[in-house]
């Protein structure tokens, strides 16, 4: 038990520290790297809770894919960090207002939070029964009770993806595209001609 408590404080401590560093780091690339560290440590917390599937998916999706794209974009941005800092102070009131609203909402949610009576039993066994693994338990819930919500979420993501492609895609004229099918369909007879060249006349 003491080891899991130590591990919790280790993960949680690094999580909080790296979250602070995300917003205070001078270099935006460093910010993204600290964000990745934060993701990774929250995955560690999930695993500590016994939710190994969620933890692993956290690493695979957030760290392995989403944050890579973040880093990709931030690295390519050519921005002067000093200019960026200059005007930042004028947004502090708006930021404070948003923060206050979020804090109020969180208080409103957690103020009415009540623990179920068998919370200790639930905490001890995150998945129902010894034989059922975490992944199976999750799959059984998602694809039966919550199938509509799950598919709806998937559909929204799909629409968002199509929308992003439609908005950013532009057809540039004069681009020579490779058509693999056409290339494969080419035969020597279609493009090559053997010609007899008599000396002194040319082709």
């Amino acid at each position, binding site marked *: 038990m003491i080891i899991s408590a130590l591990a919790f404080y280790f993960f949680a401590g690094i999580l909080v520290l790296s979250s602070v560093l995300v917003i205070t780091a001078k270099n935006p690339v460093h910010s993204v790297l600290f964000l990745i560290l934060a993701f990774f440590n929250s995955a560690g917390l999930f695993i500590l809770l016994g939710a190994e599937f969620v933890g*692993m998916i956290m690493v695979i999706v957030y760290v392995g894919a989403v944050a890579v794209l973040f880093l990709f974009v931030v690295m390519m941005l050519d921005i002067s960090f000093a200019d960026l800092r200059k005007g930042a102070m004028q947004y502090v009131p708006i930021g404070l207002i948003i923060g206050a609203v979020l804090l109020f909402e969180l208080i409103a949610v957690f103020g009415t939070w009540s623990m179920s009576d068998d919370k200790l039993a639930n905490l001890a066994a995150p998945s129902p029964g010894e034989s059922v*693994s975490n992944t199976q338990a999750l799959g059984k819930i998602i694809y039966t009770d919550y199938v509509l919500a799950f598919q709806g979420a998937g559909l929204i993501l799909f629409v968002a993806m199509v929308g992003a492609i439609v908005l950013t895609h532009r057809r540039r004229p004069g681009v020579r595209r490779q058509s693999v099918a056409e290339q494969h369909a080419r035969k020597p007879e279609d493009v090559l001609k053997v010609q007899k060249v008599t000396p002194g006349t040319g082709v």
Partner: protein
Amino acid sequence: MIEITGIFAVDWTIIKLAAILAVTVGVLLTVAYYTYGERKIMGAMQRRQGPMTVGPFGLLQPIADGIKLFSKETIIPSQANGPVFVIAPMMLFALSLVAWAVIPFDKGWVIANINAGILYLFAVSSMTVYGVIMAGWASNSRYAFLGGLRSASQMVSYEVSMGLIIVCVLLCTGTQNLQGIVEADRPVWMQILLFPMLIVFLVSILAETNRAPFDLPEGESEITGGFMVEYSAMTYALFFLGEYSAMILMSAMTNILFLGAWLPPFGIEALAFVPGIIWFAIKTLLVMFVFIWARATLPRFRYDQLMRLGWKVFLPLTLFWVVLTAGILITFDALPS
């Protein structure tokens, strides 16, 4: 007797530590001799001798290379982003080693027998991209940056189809535990069903480990070594070790997913007397040979062709195969319980 059991109980941690040490040293030695084997095999394929001067048959060549890299000076470019520049190779190297914790070498021969073993492997291999992309950015050099960007997009692209292939295998085995995957009952029709996925997986791991013919992040002839161009001495050696360790890891992963790891080939009972670890080694070496074979045989892909293959060929194919596998399993009522 009681005292002895007591000692054993205390020594359990030490046994674990010894196992970790053994696996790490074993992997590093395999990496060393994998480079030797690669040079010998490629030499044979290209009618050359390969390393032959240091030691008998050049067997001490990897050791000599290691000493050379150790004794050289580590150069950190003055314009580089110091901490990130140094952390990148360490991270790549460490990640390529931690993944070995869940690999079962034989029945029960595993350091950490966790439930979500295959997810752990996938998560670790999807994180290795950071070593490359951080190195590319921190070097503050155009070639290195291009290499890092190429690697990031390439590894993310091929991970998608790798994930879907893993889903296919998981549908057939019904467990995420690596030992469970090996020992799951696989009739012949299931193996035939999974065979095309083995081919796609082999191509994908070439792209995932940045190996020829997909070694565009390094691309000596166009970006002079890519993300590694500013690295020297031990920092370079860590990249090198990480890359080869990742190749061996991917071979072991292919072995576990498709080739039956420590089980005798084709389920021949007469061959079961051979220790499982021998079969594991032979099958892994076979996949490792494919890496070298591909490198010696195939010219490098063009970048747009690489992306086309990943997104327009492999992604639809593997997605279709997931649906097909699930459909067949449902139709014939063969889903593992």
